[in-house]
Structures are given as C-alpha cells and as structure tokens.
C-alpha cells in the first residue's frame, strides 16, 4: 500500500497543531482578556496592549532588545559567511574536522558558555589580566562586562555555529565551476562575490539573520547574567508577567506585541530582498 503525502505529514501536522498552534491561539485569546492573579477572565479588552505600549520600561527594554538582536544577528552573519565560504571552497581536508568541531560546540551548555564569557570579560577575567600582564592597561577595563556589548558577544558565540551551518548548506549547491566561469568571463574576486555568491546566499543569509535576531531579541537569560543594568531586554517582562505578577493577559499581550514586531521585520526583509531582486535567485538544476 502506498502512503500518500498527506498521511506522511499528518503526525507532524498534528503535533504542530497541538503543541504550537493551539497554545498560540490560546495566548492570543488571553491577550484580549482581563488578567486577574494567575487567571484570565472576561470581559474582552484592549487594555493589555495599551499598557504594553504606554509603559516606559517596555519601551526602554524593547529598544535594548532591538539593538542587541540586530547586532547579534548582523555580526553572526558577517562572521559566519567567510567561514562557510572557506569551508565550502577552501577547507580541503580540514572540512570534516572543522564541521565536526562546529557541531560538537552544540554539546557545550548554554549556561556554561555564558559563564565562560563572564570569566573572560570580568574585572579579573582573562582579557583584563592579559592586557595588564603585557602592560597595556593599569586598571581593569570595566566596559567589557555587564552591558549590551557582553550580551552581544555571548549571543554571537552561541548562535554562530547555527549560522555557519545554515550558510554552508546554502552554499553547497554553488559549484566551484560557477566561480571559475565568472572568473573566465573576467570577474575579479570582489565581483565574483558580489555578482555570483551574494545573490545566491542572500536568501539563506537573511533566514539565518532572522533566526538569530528572533532568538536574541527574545532572550532573557543571557541579558540577566551578562547584561547588567543596560542589557536587560523585553523578554524579562514576559517572564515577570507570567511568573511574578501572575498577569497572564498582560504577559500574552507583550509576547504578541513582540511577535508582531518580528513579523514586521520579516516583512521588511522579504520586501528588501524582492526590491533587490534577490528573492527569486535559484541555483540552476
């Protein structure tokens, strides 16, 4: 008996429906209800959204989220792109080992990596001690830790391996012969990058960018541990609403406001790719 595509996708679709769509719809409804100490109840209201947008702290934290998310995503892609390119075209016999090391880095705990950065960036951390030992500084540098810089560095470190793999997969179908052909036609190194590689990796690069942006901007653990007072982000407000004050409706409204912001960003990036005619570039069969 032949199993149709519908039957094959049904278990995954059911899982998605139960564990993703249904909770999402439930929280969507919550966000329009009235919160009351670990409960939600009628009547329907827009007050939660009004409070989300009118609270000064939310605006400050949203700005932090936006800045950190954009920086983490941009640096992740900028650093990962040459690595992926090198892996695809120049790594040779090192390719397998480096790919293994990238995958192996996922085994390191998220929290361990965050605390590792603390021991690197702190007043008595490796960087300050190193700079002191070679006489470059007399006093430890305080700006390395407990700010947006530290959060961005840690997030780039955490998400970089994912982005390298995404871009490596994006470059995989781009045969070396494409670049050789471009070279034969007179394209220089920069032109080959701009006119051959970039159009073909633009879409996966933007996917990776969005992936890192969404996860970074919504993170609340890294900012708590490394962010100090100016690195706290909006995700903390969702946690406080759900766990601290038991105001599920308000927490859901913040979460949906963030979701809406992410969708807007996705739309803007998709539009930019379309305007630059990079959204339809496909590898030849």
């Amino acid at each position, binding site marked *: 008996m032949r199993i149709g595509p519908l039957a094959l996708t049904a278990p995954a679709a059911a899982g998605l429906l139960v564990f993703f769509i249904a909770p999402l719809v439930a929280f969507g409804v919550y966000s329009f209800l009235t919160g009351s100490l670990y*409960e939600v109840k009628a009547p329907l209201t827009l007050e939660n959204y009004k409070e989300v947008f009118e609270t000064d702290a939310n605006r400050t934290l949203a700005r*932090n989220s936006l800045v950190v998310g954009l920086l983490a995503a941009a640096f992740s892609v900028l650093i990962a792109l040459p690595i992926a390119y090198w892996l695809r075209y120049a790594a040779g016999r090192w390719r397998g080992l480096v790919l293994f090391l990238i995958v192996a880095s996922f085994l390191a705990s998220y929290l361990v990596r965050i605390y590792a950065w603390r021991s690197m960036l702190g*007043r008595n951390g490796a960087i300050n001690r190193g700079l002191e030992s070679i006489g470059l500084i007399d006093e430890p540098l305080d700006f390395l830790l*407990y700010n947006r810089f530290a959060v961005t560095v840690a997030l780039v470190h955490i998400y970089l391996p994912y982005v390298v793999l995404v871009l490596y997969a994006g470059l995989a179908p781009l045969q070396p012969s494409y670049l050789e052909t471009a070279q034969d036609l007179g394209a220089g190194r920069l032109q080959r990058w701009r006119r051959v590689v970039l159009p073909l990796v633009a879409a996966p690069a933007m996917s990776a960018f969005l992936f890192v942006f969404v996860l970074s901007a919504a993170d609340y653990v890294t900012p708590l541990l490394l962010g100090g007072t100016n690195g706290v982000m909006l995700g903390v407000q969702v946690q406080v609403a759900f766990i601290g004050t038991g105001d599920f409706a308000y927490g859901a409204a913040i979460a949906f406001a963030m979701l809406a912001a992410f969708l807007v960003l996705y739309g803007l990036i998709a539009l930019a790719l379309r305007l630059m005619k990079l959204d339809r570039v496909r590898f030849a069969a």
Partner: protein
Amino acid sequence: MRYEEWMRRHTSRRLFLQRAGLITLTVGAGPTLLAACGDDDDDDTAETAAQGPAKAPAASGRVDFLSWEGYDIPDPLKSWKTQNDVTVKATYIGNHDEIQTKLKAGGAGAGYDIITYYQGYKPLYQELDILEPLDDQKLPNLKNLFPYFASKEGNFWVDADGTRTGVPWTWGSIGITIDGRRVKSMPTSWFDLLEPQFKGKVAIPDDPTGAWALAAHISGFDPSETSKDDGEKVFDLLSQVAAQSTGISPSFGDATTKMTAGDADVCWQGWAAMNEFAAAEGVDSFETQVPKEGSFSFCDAYALPSGADNADTALAWMNESLDPKVNADAAVILVGGVTVADAVPQLPKNIASLYEYDKLDELLDRSPFYNNPPLESDEFVTFEEVQKRWQEIKAEAGA
C-alpha cells in the same frame, strides 16, 4: 478533605489551641487547662482529650516535592525515608513565584504533596486557595518550636482562628555581605552602599519583594502597609541602590559569583549563606552583618497544597523536620537558622553564631518578619505595583 469539612471537624480543637497554646497541649490537657478554657469549651476539651496525644501519621510511598533545591533536605531525612520506605520526586524552583504558577497552571494540587512558602506569601497563597489546613494532632514535634515560631504572630503559619497552614522550619535575616579582600571595614548603615566608593560595586539579587521589604524597612515603613506616597520614597531609594550596581543578579548564587570574581564588592540584601557559597568557591573572605537600621527576616514553612494525594506522608515529613537533629542538620546544609530550641546545641559553631538565639526576640524586633504588600489596595502599595516598578527601576538604571 475539603476545607469546609476540615473546619467542621477541627474547629473546637483550634479554639482550644487558641486559648491554651501549643506547648500546653503537648504536655497534656490537665485541670488547669480545662479551667482556662472555661465552661463553654468543655466539649472542645473533651474532644481533644479523646483525640489523645498528638501523633505523626504513618509515612509511606512517594512524595511529590515542589520547592527550592536543598529544601527537600535529602541527607537529614535519609534515615526517616529509609525506615518508612518513602521516596521523593522533587521539582526544584528557581524563583518563589514558580510555586504558585505551577500549582495554578496545573489545577488543584497539580500532583504535588508538599511545598514551602516564605511567610510573606501567606496572604497570596490564601487568596489563591493553595494552602490546605494542617492537623496539629499529626504534628507532635510542634512542641519543639521556639515560642515565636509556635505563636500565631503575624498569622504567617497559624491563622487568627487557629488554623495552621504551615510548619516553619528554616529562617534567616538579611544583611550586608562584603568581600573582605576589597572592603576593609563593614558598612554600618545600609545607606553607606550609596556612597561613591561603592558605585558599580553593589551586587543586588533579583528579588523584587525582598528588595522592597528591605528598602521600606530602612525607610521606616512596614512593607506590607506602605502608603502610595511613602511608597514613592521607597522606590526612589531602590532606584538609587540600583544605580550603584552594574546589574541585577538572578540569584544569590549568582551575586556570590559576581563578588568572588571581583565584579562586585558588597551585596545589598546579602545573606549569611553567601559566606558559605563563597567558601565553596575557595574564597573565605566574605562576611555578613545586619547594619544599625536592622533588616527583614524570612522564614520558610512546609505546607500542604490543596489536592495533595499523599498528605499523611507529607505531614510526617513536616513533623520530622522539627526533630532537633534533623532541624539542626538542615540548618547546616542551608546555612540557615533553626526553629527548634533543642537544635541549637547541636549546631556547629559557625552556624550557631549566625544568629543570637538567646536574644531571638530582640533580633526579630530589629529584623522582623513581614507580609508581602497587599494584593489589592487603594491606600497601600500593592504586590503588583512592587513587581512592575522593580522592572522599571531595573530598566531605568541602565537607560
């Protein structure tokens, strides 16, 4: 058993306790006690006498535990668990608020048999209908409690009508913690932490209600009854404290790590246990003291969540926690205070010296137990306002 049913069955005993006191009950209800109770309570007394001396219920089976890691006191309870064939399935929290969140999200009981609550959460937990009344007849070791912890003071563990909702078993007081490697003399006032020398050097645990309680106390207000106007002064003080910090630590352990790494020198809302946490990291220069303004104290009580399906074993556990040796061993592990008088002689010197047990009343006058702010009030700063303003203060500190 539903609350109403329990009330019917135990009201007379509670009234009896209210008049006679727990300690008298445990040494037996004699003629003096009968006289004290008066004529109206003859029936009550007779019922209590018929119940006989308090006795812990038989323990067996699995107990589902929900609280902080370490509060299941695995080692002190080891022999009791072995003797009674009790197993524990523990769910640890990272934040006190996770308890009510899990219980409310999971429905009645949510599968848990024993929880703990910090005394300030009592009104919230009652409002949420989380706490099941406890039967003192099944807790004979209540007789071991220090008089303060056996009393109805503050209604933290026993309601005004005598209904017991918790068994206080560990406590502590908040103070200033310093790292002596960099701070040569202990600040004598909380306000010293606002001095320029501590700019960027103050560690602050992310505990909104604790931070509020401390700031209100040293500003001369009761944190549970601070007017909206006075509340602004307290929030202003918290803003000044937050501005002295490089960041708010998600836990006391994290605040300790921050200090041992040299990224902070003093801790607002410090805790004697941090001295031991630091020692475990190889740093023995931590010191904690309560400054001249005093501070606030915290006491955690075991409690039975509504819908618990192994209530008898949970009660037996609570009773065992008041055994002097178990109570002392738990204090050693948690670097905390004991609630049982006979546990004090069993404490090692470093733990016994944390708190002056011979001057307990005096200590608790300077660093009282408080309730959290009210859930709703037009007059006083509320629990929700504290939580939200704390987030604003954190955000503003870095803006």
